[in-house]
């Protein structure tokens, strides 16, 4: 109400004059199309990130640092409200950072728009609404490759090899698929840009345990091709089992970090987050 008067619709939901479907909610923080020189280091660094939503919102992240090496799987876990997804959004440029910076492959990308980050090799799979439901599977993949000027058929072939079920269903509307298959479409769409870093926001939310295991297998396969993976997960134990590196966030700050195995073995982490 008190905010932007242009966004005050007085609670009107009249379907004959307004269309709420698919409306954009993203508020990109960055504005620049080109990165600045940074320093060499790990492939992706989110350094001392502090910030919150909007220009005036309260800080959600406090001095949080996340690093991913090339071809590595990094997992962010933590209790509800710890700022896991927020940390990932900060890396992707959908959060106003008040301190800290984001480096990708030695370049400072802190001021980049999300689209520019996609062009620089970041692929992002949001937690919800991550596919074009009214379009076919193949069209979803095509849209993933929208920024590419070259021939993307080989990438599509790779996606189909990774997720054979998608080849079968390629002419079906993506919205008609099951939950697990939708996630495969979502990951496939992000892979079409040939990213060097794939970011997944709770890819297994709402899918059955069997499907979850299969998804994790596929994610390992993706990582083997040299793509770095940054993933936020609710299912902490399973995720840490496949992780090269794990971050436990507590109230927007780094709580514990280490390799997946170390965290799984750490008695503190086990007691507080993994249920004994």
């Amino acid at each position, binding site marked *: 109400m008190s905010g*932007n008067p*242009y*966004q*005050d*619709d*007085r609670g*009107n939901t*009249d*379907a*004959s*004059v*307004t*269309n*709420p*479907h*698919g*409306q*954009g*909610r*993203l*508020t*990109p923080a960055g504005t620049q199309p080109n990165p600045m020189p940074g320093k060499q280091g790990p492939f992706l660094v989110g350094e001392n990130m502090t910030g919150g939503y909007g220009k005036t919102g309260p800080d959600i992240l406090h001095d949080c640092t996340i690093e991913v090496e090339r071809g590595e799987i990094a997992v962010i876990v933590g209790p509800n409200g710890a700022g896991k997804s927020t940390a990932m959004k900060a890396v992707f440029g959908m959060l106003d950072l008040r301190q800290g910076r984001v480096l990708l492959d030695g370049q400072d990308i802190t001021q980049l728009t*999300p*689209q520019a980050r*996609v*062009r620089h090799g970041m692929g*992002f799979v*949001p937690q919800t*609404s*991550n*596919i*074009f*439901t*009214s*379009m076919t599977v193949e*069209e979803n993949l*095509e*849209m*993933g490759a*929208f*920024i590419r000027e070259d021939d993307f058929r080989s990438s599509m072939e790779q996606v189909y090899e990774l997720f054979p079920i998608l080849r079968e269903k390629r002419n079906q509307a993506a919205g008609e698929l099951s939950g697990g298959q939708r996630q495969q479409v979502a990951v496939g*769409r992000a892979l079409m*840009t040939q990213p060097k870093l794939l970011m997944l926001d709770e890819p297994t939310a709402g899918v059955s345990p069997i499907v979850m295991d299969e998804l994790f297998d596929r994610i390992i396969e993706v990582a083997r091709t040299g793509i770095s993976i940054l993933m936020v997960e609710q299912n902490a134990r399973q995720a840490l089992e496949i992780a090269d590196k794990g971050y436990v966030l507590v109230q927007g700050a780094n709580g514990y970090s280490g390799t997946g195995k170390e965290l799984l073995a750490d008695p503190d982490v086990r007691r507080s987050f993994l249920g004994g």
Partner: protein
Amino acid sequence: MDLLNGFVALANFVLIPAIAYGSQLALGALGVTLIYGILRFSNFAHGDTMAVGTMFAVLTTWGLQAMGVGLGPFPTALLAIPFGILGATGIVLLTDRYVYRFYRAQKAKPVILVIVSMGVMFIYNGFTRIIIGPDDQRFADGERFVISARDFKEMTGLAEGLSLRTSQVITVITAIVVVAILFWFLNKTRTGKSMRAFSDNEDLALLSGINPERVVLVTWLIVASLATVAGVLYGLDKSFKPFTYFQLLLPIFAAAIVGGMGNPLGAIAGGFVIAFSEVGITYAWKKVLGYLMPPALQPDGLMQMLSTEYKFAISFVILVIVLLFRPTGLFRGKSL
């Protein structure tokens, strides 16, 4: 023979006019539905966009006629359509640049845009009336009939005549061509697909690198073209009067909603549903029934369910009935 006569009468007074009118409504509804799908509001200025486009076409037609350029048996206005589209596109893009774009940047709620479109409606309305005046303008020329009722009677020896006006034939053919191109564009081209993607999920489209401003630009281009074509066809079939075009807003909205807002296929179906109900319910069925029914059962009255002045009421009643039984319209509110 009676059966044949009855069918000819039916075709002459109901089927042909309804198909022509339905095509015009469908083209109008397509424009409304595209805006609804991509810019996410109902454009109250659409009727007046049609009027603006048609006005440019009418002015060009007069110019061409004055220069002696014509198309022989076809109306000169066909030549003028591209100029009409050009004019409408110019106006619409100017409006987008100086009016709508600001609200997109503000991420304004769609209902604010609806009110904005009311302002645009006032401006277009005034603009059209200032330039061409509020009166009826005729601009059709060329052969009036493909088949006139008299020729038809002589040809077939039937008691009933069937007249097929050039404008009706042109309307249907043009509508089919335009719709085919539009569907090819939306489903087969990269830009068209990006429009559908944007309509489906704006955020994901952004993350895929689709440029929203480009999508919006293309949408306005298409909408201006559709509106102009629809307007010129309607004008050829009937006549051009700014107020009538403004009034078309209700049947066009009704068609778009009946079909399922945001769904192009639905817009076309809706256009024909509305057109057939309007023409069918306001037609005096006495003649047709006279041929089809045995003499004993022949009706005395005109068998006209409602007088023609109620045609706007019919679009509305159909709309309510459809919504009562299928709240998302005939084609489930799938986006584009």
